[in-house]
């Protein structure tokens, strides 16, 4: 049985068709799978392997390289706090300690109710608002302990769902406008080019 639900499966096939080599779609497909479950379940990796023509071990290998891909279960909200230099100078370590205390989990841990996972992150590219915090890869610009607590309360109460969808939906994977170029056009161009080569 397919791991991806029908809509996701269609999206997955679209993604594969985007690239000249199927295996180039490996990372996008991992993001897609995370959208469904929050993390890469073994079944997901096996299905991705089949879709892009590599082995499950290779999918695991690639996925485990990236911090944004989770090969272990994570909470509904993944809270990432940057501790690189700009943020560190502006209280990142303290905020991280506070977050750990507030959530009651060590860095890297997931709360018992499965709602939050706390992560220490490398530069998140928002250095002018230190210390930088992301939830499910969305900047929340929450730089103080108080603001952090309010955010957690809100999320725990089920708020801000519009702004922070569950799990790590990435803009590139789910562009609102769909694919920029329709797949048949890509196929046509490719065929033309192949002919030109021959």
């Amino acid at each position, binding site marked *: 049985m397919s791991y991806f639900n029908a809509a996701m499966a269609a999206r997955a096939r679209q993604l594969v068709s985007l690239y000249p080599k199927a295996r180039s779609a490996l990372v996008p497909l991992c993001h897609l799978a995370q959208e469904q479950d929050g993390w890469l379940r*073994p079944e997901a*990796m*096996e299905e991705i392997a089949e879709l892009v023509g*590599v*082995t*499950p*071990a*290779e*999918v*695991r*290998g690639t996925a*485990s*390289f990236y911090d944004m891909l989770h*090969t272990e279960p994570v909470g509904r909200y993944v809270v990432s706090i940057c501790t690189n230099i700009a943020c560190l100078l502006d209280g990142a370590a303290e905020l991280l300690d506070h977050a750990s205390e507030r959530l009651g989990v060590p860095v890297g841990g997931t709360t018992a109710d499965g709602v939050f996972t706390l992560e220490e992150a490398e530069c998140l590219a928002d250095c002018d608002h230190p210390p930088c915090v992301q939830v499910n890869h969305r900047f929340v610009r929450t730089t103080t302990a108080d603001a952090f607590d309010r955010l957690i309360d809100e999320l725990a109460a089920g708020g801000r769902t519009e702004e922070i969808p569950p799990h790590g939906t990435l803009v590139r994977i789910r562009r609102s406008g769909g694919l920029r170029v329709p797949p048949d056009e890509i196929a046509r161009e490719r065929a033309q080019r192949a002919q030109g080569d021959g």
Partner: protein
Amino acid sequence: MAEPQAGPPGTVTFTLDGRRVTGREGELVISAAERAGVYIPRFCYHPRLAPVGMCRMCLVEVVGPRGATLQPACIATVEEGGEIVTDSPKVKKAQDGILEFLLINHPLDCPVCDKGGECPLQDQTLAYGPGESRFVEEKRHFAKPIALSELVLLDRERCIQCGRCTRFAEEVAGEAQIDFAGRGERLEVAMFPTRPFTSYFSGNTVQICPVGALTATPYRFTARPWDLDQVESTCTTCAVGCRVAVQSSANRLTRLLGLDSEPVNHSWLCDKGRFAYEAVNGDEVRAGPAAADGRPVTLGSSHPRGAFAGEVIETASKVGRVTEPMVRAGDRHVRAGWSRALAEAARRLGEVRAAHGPEAIAVLGGGRLTNEGAYAWTKLAKAVLGTDSVDAQLGDGLPAELVLALPRATIDETCSAPVVVLIGGDVREELPVLFLRLRRAVLDGRTRIVEVSPRSTALTQYAAVSLRVRPGDVPAVARILAGQPGPLPSHPAGPACSPEQLAQARALVEAAGGEAGSSVVVAYGRSSLAEDPSFDAAAVSTLAVAWPGARFLPLLRRGNVHGALDMGMAPGILPGRTSLEGGRAWFVEHWGSVPRARGKAATEVLQSAAEGGPGSVRALVLVGCDPLQDFPDAALAARALAGAEVVVAVAGHPSPALDHADVVLPVAVAHERPGTTTNIEGRVTRLGQKLVPPGLAWPDWTIATALADELGYDLAIGSVTEIAEEIERVAPAYRGFSPGYLDQVSGHDGLVVPLGTADAPPVAPIDPMATPGIGQVEQQGAPPRAGLTETVERELLAALHPEPAGEGAPAPMRRPAVEPVALPPPDHYSLRLVSTRRLYDRSSAVVGSPSLEPLVPPARALANPSELARLGVQDGERVRVTSPRGQVVLEAGADAGVPKGVLVVEFNLAEPAGAPNAASALIDATVPVNDVRLETL
């Protein structure tokens, strides 16, 4: 400074540490330097893998337009006029740095590490390292070890992240079941949690790991390299003939490592070949037909140790081996000692011969013998006993007269032929390392494969065209390939391969020279054990007639079956690829006598013994074979053994047939006797002796000469060397060949007979960094290539072109005309049975090896999904398969690689309930094809 002068074309001249040296164009600095005598340390570089430059251990200074820069010597190539420095302070500092970093994360648990004493990390740290570490923090810790498979364990903290193992899996085996996971210092080799590293080639990763991160379960903690002894030899688990270093300690085999042989195995082994040495040690048989009740086994399936009360081999040190001569006393075997057992065997055989003539005796088996043993047994059978009913193949091969008469291709020629037509089963299952060679040849664009097989195989995805055939279709497909268009045998479900595919295949052949066929190699074996061999044989014959320039590589898989055939162990032939008639005068002159007329092949022998009556076979001599397990038709084999008046078994391992034996003679097996072996391409290589045979077991040839003595004849051979000399003298294909050549430098990878048909390729020196464990053991005083002499090299080259044979020597064999038997039309209700081989089957090599035995898969009834749907059978459901011969209950499996109208039951596997070999319960070996019915329970 004047520009250095350019060398001959294809070479470049550069400066290496101030010396001018020559390298090949495009050659890597690391190997050019090595050939020039400058060793550059390395970890990730392996001469048989594509370089990746991952470990940086090989940094050297390369002088370029912008001055000298540090570059990895395994990536940089030599340039005309270039300058390389390997011994500057800067290089030394880089080496220090890399090693210090590697050791930060390394546990240095050498005292409890299998690699200690043969470890490239130890050796290179000593030679190039800083000698001191500045790291005082806590090191990484991992749970240790974790199992990647039943055979391979991983100690992650020892891994230096060189990627040799992962690259091997992907690049060489084509099965990336392991890959790096994680990043940075947490990078680890990992499998997917639910998918173990089941590749047939997994042991090679253990062999090439430059540290003790990967260990093999059979070897782990069994020995220290400095306690090991070794000998160079050849694996005879199948007929590829991979070169190996066989290592032992205290008269027990501990490990086999692949030697790098350019013409054969490129340093790789399959796991069966690598680990089946356990069966030779034979000290534990975990399960299987020989010990279904869990008790240790001495002999025969129904004779567990207790049943022998007092009479038997209490003294035997090895329970998985036959170690003492025995004779039957009523319904039991009793220990006899050699003189009594030989006398008894000779008496019984002599009686049969006196009463019924020599034709009443048949000798089966021989694929497990050395060439010398095979020659001695042929001489015993054909010159002394006088029977021509001798067969080293047990109904699972092809007619010897055809195989020996076809012009032979080498493995190298096959892997560089523009087109290879492959007829037969799955090469990865039958001749594993040949699969690696063919796969590489296809990926490198050297060859294209036209595959003709009854089901899709591991090579299918690499084949340019893959043609499915049903039993009996092969001759028609061969005719079409040969440019003689005609219909395929009709079938209700339509042909198994399409006209377009056939046209495509034909076009490939035409593009490669068509009927001239000189760029075509036909690699051929047995497609299925459930159909008459004449189908495959006729197909090959058709191609041989149509393509006079083509060459042929036989894929008969049994250990030394090619040596046995070359030595005459088949009906209608005599040693040296000579026909019985063609060689009659010559061999009468040398031997005194040869059989009156052509004898019976294995199937006819068993049929005759089973049926009895006047002129039938009454005595069976089994030489290292068990028809109950090896012959495709178990019922016929059982009737034959029951019907035979006398059964003499020469056996190394206990097996069910021994129950029927009147006399059992224990024989030394692989690694227990010296000699030579001949592989699929006709390459003769050395077999080294590493062990003293267990108990009273004797070498194969000694038993033949002793038995001849008992019968009152002198075989006139007193040693392996004498036999080899006699072979050279009398066997035409071995003319000029002396085993002494194999001890010379360029003889190490063997010589192809007849001499002069293939050159002796360069032999690689042992590379202690590529395959740790051989060179290091050698340094400790155990040279595997003992007796290596360079002085007689010239003699060897001359020998490659031997003098023509003298007066009266037999002419080369002529290809026999082969016609396929008539193919009965299929009906709508039956499926046609196909039986192919798996690597891990219930052969004594696997069942006797505790590490391999659990890997034998259960037999299943495999059919096309649409066929199962038509019959209303679910994938995984238990079904009853019925043939006129018998009935078995198996799990059904859907397999899209099986054509419609066909049912596949693989040979000699375990049936789920533990009963072995469902296939041979279904097969009738005396009919052209076997039709079976499939029903749900």
